[in-house]
């Protein structure tokens, strides 16, 4: 990639947004580079949607500054809106318009030249060429989501903001959706996508993890997992024994998380020495097989969130 690839598409510092007394986004910094797929993760209410809305000019931040596509997010949202495609969490096209009419509407708003050809091409790509006259409201969830994506890339934006685009969509449709996103990114489009799915996070170039409006971790998946300093043991054995073991380990000093996966238990803690000490009495049990495991992204996030919750509560006190 050329030198231009290094210029950040999104660069914000100290972004803050309050709704009443509640601070939803709390001094948030983020850099996203061109052509990257940047995952946006965090529990419900962590400020993902609010941040995305600020970036595309739908909300005015209470504090902080930054640029999106080189334009000031505070004063140049009109220019940003021209170059951004935003896919809302909830289907927000017109259910009482047909698929084609929806695309026509978006194309006209953006003043696209050769509208008819572009809409036809979009319908072809969607595989909806023969169903263009069907009302958008009659589409199933997966198709609605594909239509919404087609509508927000119609004007070939430089930046795509996707807010939980695959919520409630079946695995096959999700896979296809992500293939499409990777194809778009390969074409030079930058993508910021929020999600709750770990497998989707792993398909991102970089991820950012939010909780309580703060950015807790940012980097590639490996970097985020490594940075958490979490160590994990996998233990398997008879079902009854595993269930009992889970209860026994829960709350022991050094044990932060105990999560059963079938007949295997994932036991994690941030302090490797204390974790080892905590499980030592059980290491010799004949029916149990202990193995050192890699912490998963999910383990990492739950760890980060628990940590943030403590800090959050501490700050409140």
């Amino acid at each position, binding site marked *: 990639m050329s030198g231009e690839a290094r210029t950040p598409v999104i660069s914000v510092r100290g972004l803050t947004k309050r709704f009443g007394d509640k601070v939803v986004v709390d001094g948030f910094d983020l850099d996203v580079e061109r052509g990257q797929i940047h995952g946006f993760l965090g529990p419900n209410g962590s400020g993902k949607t609010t941040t995305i809305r600020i970036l595309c*000019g739908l909300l005015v931040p209470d504090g902080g500054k930054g640029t999106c596509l080189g334009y000031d997010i505070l004063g140049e949202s*009109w220019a940003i*809106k021209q170059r951004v495609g935003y896919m809302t969490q*909830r289907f927000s096209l*017109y259910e009482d318009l047909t698929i084609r009419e929806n695309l026509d509407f978006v194309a006209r708003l953006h003043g696209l030249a050769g509208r008819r050809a572009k809409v036809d091409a979009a319908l072809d790509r969607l595989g909806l060429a023969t169903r263009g006259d069907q009302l958008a409201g009659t589409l199933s969830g997966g198709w609605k989501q594909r239509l919404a994506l087609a509508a927000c890339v119609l004007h070939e934006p430089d930046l795509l903001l996707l807010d939980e685009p695959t919520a409630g969509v079946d695995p096959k449709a999700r896979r296809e959706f992500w293939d499409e996103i990777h194809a778009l990114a390969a074409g030079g489009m930058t993508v910021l996508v929020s999600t709750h799915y770990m497998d989707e996070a792993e398909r991102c170039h970089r991820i950012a993890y939010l909780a309580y409006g703060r950015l807790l971790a940012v980097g590639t998946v490996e970097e985020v997992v490594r940075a958490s300093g979490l160590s994990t043991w996998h233990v398997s054995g008879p079902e009854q024994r595993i269930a009992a073991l889970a209860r026994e380990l829960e709350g022991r000093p050094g044990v932060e998380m105990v999560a059963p996966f079938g007949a295997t238990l994932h036991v994690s803690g941030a302090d490797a020495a204390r974790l080892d000490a905590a499980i030592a009495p059980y290491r010799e049990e004949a029916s149990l097989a202990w193995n050192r495991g890699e912490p998963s992204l999910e383990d990492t996030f739950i760890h980060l969130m628990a940590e943030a919750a403590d800090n959050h509560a501490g700050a409140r006190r």
Partner: protein
Amino acid sequence: MKRPHFAWHRLVAVVVKEFIQLKRDRLTFAMMVGIPLLQLILFGYAINNDPRHLPTAVLSQDNSVFSRAIVAGLQTSTYFRVTVIAGDVAELDRMLARGEVQFAVEIPAGFERQLMRGDRPALLVMADATDPAATGNAVGAIERIVEGALTPLLDGPLLTLARVPPAVDVRVHRRYNPEGLTQYNIVPGLMGTILTMTMIIMTSLAMTRERERGTMENLLSMPVRPTEVMLGKLAPFVLVGGLQVLVILGAARLLFGVPMAGPPVVLAVGLLVFIVANLAVGFLFSTVARNQLQAMQMSFFFFLPSILMSGFMFPFRGMPDWAQMIGEVLPLTHLLRVVRGVMLKGNGLADSWPDIWPMLAFLLAALILAATRYRQTLD
């Protein structure tokens, strides 16, 4: 299978839930209590079926004790309020056509001389009968008022003149609607009320519907200006309004035989301004209301004074001054005057303009207010 019985606990569950939801929607609740109270007070005092103090222009071509007595008699009757002393007949006509006065009284030259000779001089009373209800009572009383005014003067040698038939021949002309047909008044008025209702309701739902269906977020994220959204949403309804006008005018002509005395172009101009003004009000409501129910309530809140205080249902001049001032703000008040003026009186643009510009001003105010109320963010 046994059918489940009616159970009180389930009924109670639903009732409790409904009450909670009703309580949550504060604005709706406030409107349900506040609007009836406000309207009761507003209309209770404003509406009057026996209008008095009707503005009257007098042209006196005979300066005598008798003509002065008649003018004084009109005033003290409380039916008439002499607001203008006209210089000639043309001025009387113009004032009637523009609706500045309800009555024009002409006392002819040589009135005193003819009266003294017992020639029963004519006293010409012209009433603007476009709204028969507004003039009915005053017209009914006029002969008695004139007689009462003159009787004290007709004493001594003139006593014989006070006998039947009366000394003065009061001739009442019901202008513009000589037969006093209610339809002539109601049908053009209905056009205005029908337009008010449909136009405001349609556009008051415009933005609230986008918000309720969740399409607002998508719309706002795309590059589109508030004025573009606003005008775009109003445009289709200008056409719908035009269609309604054609239907109503056709029916007025074919079913009720309402005449079209003036130029239709002037009527079209007035209606266009009126339609857009109402659409703009509706759009303004839709930028304020949080949901479609509130938008509907606001529409009715505007609609009721429009029919009750515009002169459509009750004579405009029957209302107290403060109520007339409110009425003057409403576009329907002015539209009624334009429509009745053009269709019944044959008014042209010059005579209609005094009622077209207030609608234009209202339209601009509503548009500007709506454009500033329109939020480009979700804040």
